[in-house]
């Protein structure tokens, strides 16, 4: 048994922040272990999954829908275009759909232990970023295969990821809080995600946007946060340029807006959670 003086210094985390960091680490590693427990290839699936998805989609969309035949994306570039878009979009869709139910899933814990409630949705976003790190291996394999030489533009990757992370955290906080009060959000969000997948140039190339008739639709397309994050990613991986100031500005703006709304809604309502879970 530790004596009183050493207790306050070594046994317990000194600040709430330190405690939260350790909890986040433990929760992420928990999710990771559970995800790959009992699977033969284990963590290799994090690399294989995006690769296989890319191969399937590349075959379907180049042969049937004739994507990547003309315009800015050549057939050689199309697989890389596809995989970069896919793994980036997956960060958002995975993290938000996981964060959504995170508070409800942690209900047994929240009822008994005092712990900052935000760690649960935030943890899901961090977990999807860990997965993203593995899928980067798949992206590297595709780059090797097609002899795409990375340039210094890739140094901007952390910037893009941090902005995307904050955007997802904001959404995650908002959705997890909303789901506590209205379970409908769960069902609604899967529809929203599907719609979002189709309205974002993941498998279709951005050349289609200027061809759209409706002016409003075009504006919406360019304002779409996921369009901007995907563009950012593709520019540094594929086109080897920097994002335009407008794209970069929108990436920042969406991250700030999502965080501001998500944090405010979550913070205003979190003390009521326990009565609804």
């Amino acid at each position: 048994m530790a004596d009183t003086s050493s207790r306050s210094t070594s046994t317990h985390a000194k600040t709430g922040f330190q405690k939260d960091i350790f909890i986040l680490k433990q929760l992420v590693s928990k999710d990771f272990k559970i995800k790959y427990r009992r699977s033969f290839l284990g963590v290799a699936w994090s690399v294989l999954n995006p690769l296989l998805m890319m191969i399937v989609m590349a075959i379907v969309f180049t042969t049937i829908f004739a994507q990547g035949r003309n315009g800015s994306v050549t057939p050689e570039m199309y697989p890389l275009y596809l995989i970069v878009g896919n793994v980036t979009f997956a960060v958002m869709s995975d993290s938000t759909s996981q964060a959504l139910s995170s508070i409800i899933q942690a209900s047994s814990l929240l009822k008994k232990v005092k712990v900052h409630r935000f760690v649960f949705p935030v943890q899901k976003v961090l977990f999807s970023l860990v997965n993203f790190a593995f899928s980067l291996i798949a992206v590297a394999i595709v780059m090797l295969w097609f002899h795409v030489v990375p340039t210094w533009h890739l140094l901007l990757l952390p910037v893009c990821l941090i902005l995307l992370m904050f955007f997802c955290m904001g959404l995650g906080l908002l959705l997890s809080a909303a789901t506590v009060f209205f379970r409908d959000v769960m069902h609604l969000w899967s529809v929203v995600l599907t719609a979002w997948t189709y309205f974002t140039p993941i498998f279709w190339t951005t050349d289609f946007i200027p061809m759209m008739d409706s002016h409003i639709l075009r504006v919406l397309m360019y304002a779409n946060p996921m369009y901007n994050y995907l563009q950012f990613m593709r520019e540094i991986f594929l086109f080897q340029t920097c994002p335009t100031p407008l794209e970069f500005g929108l990436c920042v703006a969406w991250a700030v807006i999502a965080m501001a709304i998500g944090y405010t809604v979550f913070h205003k309502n979190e003390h009521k959670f326990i009565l609804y879970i």
Partner: protein
Amino acid sequence: MSDAKNAAAAAEEYAVEVNDVTMIFNMASEQLNNLKEYFIKLAKHELFFKEFRALKHISFKVRRGDVVGLVGTNGSGKSTMLKVIAGVLEPSEGECIVRGNIAPLIELGAGFDMELTARENIYLNGALLGYTKQFIDEHLDEIVDFAELHDFMDMPLKNYSSGMVARIAFAIATITEPDILIVDETLSVGDVFFQQKCEERIQHFIESGDVTVLFVSHSIEQVERICKRAVWIEKGDLRMDGPVKEVCEAYRNQFN
């Protein structure tokens, strides 16, 4: 933990102060869990909730090192009181000040994930209790020793019996001397030998004089044996607060 610093500075002060705490639950006649129901009710102006006061203006203070038992019949608000003190529930009115770190033994194993092994759960639960990684590394053996589950450390917890889960949970929560220990019916799990072992450890904390213990049990004898003072809560009201003998006597007499 900033509370710990204050506690050190004012060691003679109260460890737990419950000031005029009222806890109101909205007992919706039916729970509204979806938007459609919500808007229909809103449109019909039927969005009223029946108020349920689980705790009504409860005040008491617990000195550092005190051992206090909470007694009351089922549904009288004991567990709600403990949850307010543990910081899980926020009181609707009044305030609850707690100085120092809390080891909550409320439903052992609450933070466990059944898919993970015991070893992994020790780290997860330790994190939730606010321990540092280094501390858990150093004391892992001690925890396992106390729980007496050496051979099962790498087995998923879903294969454990509830008694084994309780052993691990108790061992983690009490590995360090907490400032405040909250014990809610926990001693009723596990076999007789382990119950004894747990009681011994709690007794050890009590004797050290630094640990404040809040104890809830339906066994009046156990409360009388362990506690010095008792608080009787009945239907959300503070009925009595005083030496354990007097309170338990009065509590027993209500049935006669």
